[in-house]
């Protein structure tokens, strides 16, 4: 029966999460993460430890693997409240990508070695898929692993590897045979070992988040292989589809909408608060309309627990990424002259004075707007998603 009312149990859960955040999220950590800058790995690990003490460090995992067993609605509420409170982002490479692959396809030995320390905040992950000649087209990967006794020996080059310089482990998609469907294998590699050279790439914000990773006779045991040899492409596809309802980034978009309003209220243009400018106010309203529709599309996707309805994953990815880009761009615009000042992430994180003057909400806004250009590129570029919609939803 169609029932569009909100579940009172979900609202009780929201209060529980809120109370937990009030008691446990360190204010200094919240200050660092409330702005547009991204959590440092040390904040993410510390926050993971705090959540682990409550049994909440894997919100999206089933109970038998150390997760919470929460419903999708509860996970969404948790995300919303954490984002609003300024909690650092959790390690999504571990939580949404490699973790579920390990507990779904990994051996018991692998599960026992990797999952518990990850849940305690002792492992930081990076994802090594993209290569200089393989972006959205994973079939063109060239980094190769060759079996040598009980080890794989890996040689090649990965690029755009976010966070590799701070990671303790990397999961790589590498070539072990010919072709796409049967030629790729997923391997877990200790990031701190000889043969791995990590070269920083300054990103568009002038920050260091991206890396080139060069693998020169890097060894990893066969026991670190996820699932079977030659099945890596299928696993990679499964994890990209795994994101489903979360691809729209509803909590992030909600937060960005609120920040946009805050900036527009706190910025003067031609002698009055920008929010009173009818043209700019209408642009905010347009973005809000998009958000309101997108939020319900995400709810529809989440409520389809048996997968009987159409898959909206690509819809959410395209429109969620376009919305976050639109909102962050409007934020920069709303800052006016302060939108052109280059603020410092390091100064913000250290609580030191900024090199440029401006209101408290200014640092991080431009940085996030720049970073979000990647949202429509990663996880299968939006052009790929539109093609997927044509194939899957429209059956073309």
């Amino acid at each position, binding site marked *: 029966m169609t029932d569009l009312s909100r579940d009172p149990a979900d609202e009780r859960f929201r209060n529980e999460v809120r109370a937990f955040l009030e008691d446990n999220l360190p204010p200094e950590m919240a200050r660092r993460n409330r702005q547009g800058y991204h959590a440092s790995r040390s904040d993410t690990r510390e926050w993971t430890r705090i959540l682990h003490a409550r049994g909440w460090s894997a919100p999206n995992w089933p109970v038998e693997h150390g997760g919470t067993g929460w419903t999708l609605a509860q996970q969404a509420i948790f995300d919303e409240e954490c984002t609003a409170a300024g909690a650092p982002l959790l390690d999504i490479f571990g939580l949404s990508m490699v973790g579920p692959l390990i507990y779904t396809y990994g051996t018991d030995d692998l599960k026992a070695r990797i999952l518990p320390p990850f849940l305690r905040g002792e492992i930081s992950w990076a994802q090594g898929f993209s290569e200089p000649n393989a972006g959205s087209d994973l079939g063109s990967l060239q980094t190769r692993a060759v079996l040598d006794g009980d080890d794989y020996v890996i040689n090649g080059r990965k690029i755009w590897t976010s966070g590799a310089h701070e990671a303790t482990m990397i999961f790589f998609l590498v070539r072990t045979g010919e072709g796409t469907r049967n030629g790729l294998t997923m391997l877990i590699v200790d990031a701190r070992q000889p043969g791995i050279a990590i070269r920083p790439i300054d990103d568009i914000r002038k920050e260091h988040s991206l890396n080139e990773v060069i693998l020169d006779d890097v060894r990893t045991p066969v026991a670190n292989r996820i699932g079977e040899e030659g099945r890596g492409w299928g696993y990679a596809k499964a994890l990209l589809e795994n994101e489903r309802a979360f691809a729209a980034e509803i909590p992030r978009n909600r937060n960005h909408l609120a920040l946009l309003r805050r900036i527009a209220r706190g910025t003067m243009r031609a002698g009055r608060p920008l929010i009173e400018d009818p043209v700019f106010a209408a642009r905010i309203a347009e973005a809000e*309309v998009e958000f309101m529709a997108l939020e319900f599309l995400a709810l529809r996707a989440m409520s389809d627990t048996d997968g009987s309805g159409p898959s909206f994953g690509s819809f959410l990815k395209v429109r969620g990424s376009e919305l976050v880009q639109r909102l962050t761009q409007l934020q920069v615009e709303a800052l006016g002259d302060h939108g052109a000042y280059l603020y410092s992430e390091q100064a913000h994180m250290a609580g030191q004075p900024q090199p440029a003057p401006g209101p408290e909400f200014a640092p991080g806004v431009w940085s996030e707007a720049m970073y979000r250009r990647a949202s429509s590129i990663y996880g299968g570029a939006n052009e790929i998603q539109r093609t997927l919609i044509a194939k899957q939803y429209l059956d073309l």
Partner: protein
Amino acid sequence: MDFGLSEEQVLLVDGARRYVEQTSDYEARRKAVDSGEAYGAARWQQFAELGWLALALPERHGGLGGSAVDYALLVEALGAGLMLEPLVPVAAAAMALVTAGGAGDLPSAVAEGSARPVLAHGEPGSGGLLTFVESRAERSAAGWRLTGAKSLVLGGAAATHYLVSARTSGDKADDAGISLFLVPADHAALGRRDVRLTDDSVGAHLAFTGLDLPDAALLGPESGGLPALREGMAWLQLGLHAEALGAMDKALWTTRDYVRTRRQFGTELSTFQAVQHGLADMAMETELSRSMLLRLLSVFDGDSAERDRTLAAAKAQFGRSGFFVGAQAVQLHGGIGMADEYLIGMIFKRLLLLRNLHGGPDMALGQLTQD
């Protein structure tokens, strides 16, 4: 939340879809339009027999007591058939009558199919502002005397009654001071022009130059007609959005089928990525609109600020998406999309008209900036 349908809802939707498939011959629609018919009287009687005219009315008024969700599902299914019949305007007026009270057994007559009241609210200068009413009613010896004009009265040519908003006090955009009057369509002194609309339906333009009405024509409290008017307009918008959704969905899948078979450059159009992505954008707009309609339904019961806000958001969403989907369907069809006799052009014209109703999407965005 549970977005699934109950057994009764599945039956309702299946029945309406079957009806559309069996009776909505677009060629027949064109003939009906050419003959000057405002609506199909025989079809209207079928609507009544199927219970559709009674669906959302409360049981005490001879209705079936269905929910807003039931109603939206029905209208969406009928929307694919581009019905010329004023089901939505009549249902909206009936809900306003129920809220206002005082109309006797008129709602029951709606349920039976014998009465077709419609709202006559918008005026040439109102631009979708709900409280903008310049028409005036003044006390007279016989009861009331009505002066003013009402434009783009949907379903106006097929109506048996008009539910007219007129000011009995206050200034043109005040909240208080609006009263509702029931005017029979055959009132001798009513200046009424039936107007063919751009989507081939027939509306009416009304002029009152000292129209005399009895005391009993006033429905609900004097100068306190706004709640009933608000309820009626909310149902009108809900219904029009549901209709638009049905039409958008029809445009999407018709276009999908067309590009699969139409060949150019030695291959099906559907093999071109530009065409695929154009269709993917249509699909996203359609599903986001469906999501917005569900959001509206989740707050629809009862007058609230949240409902008003969501009505404005839905208006903006459907205005933008409806136009996009319709225009894109014409584009991807090429030449045939420009033909008067073809379904896709009919859908586009309907969606364009709906977009610009009640001040259009900009008016709705403006409302969203008011808080």
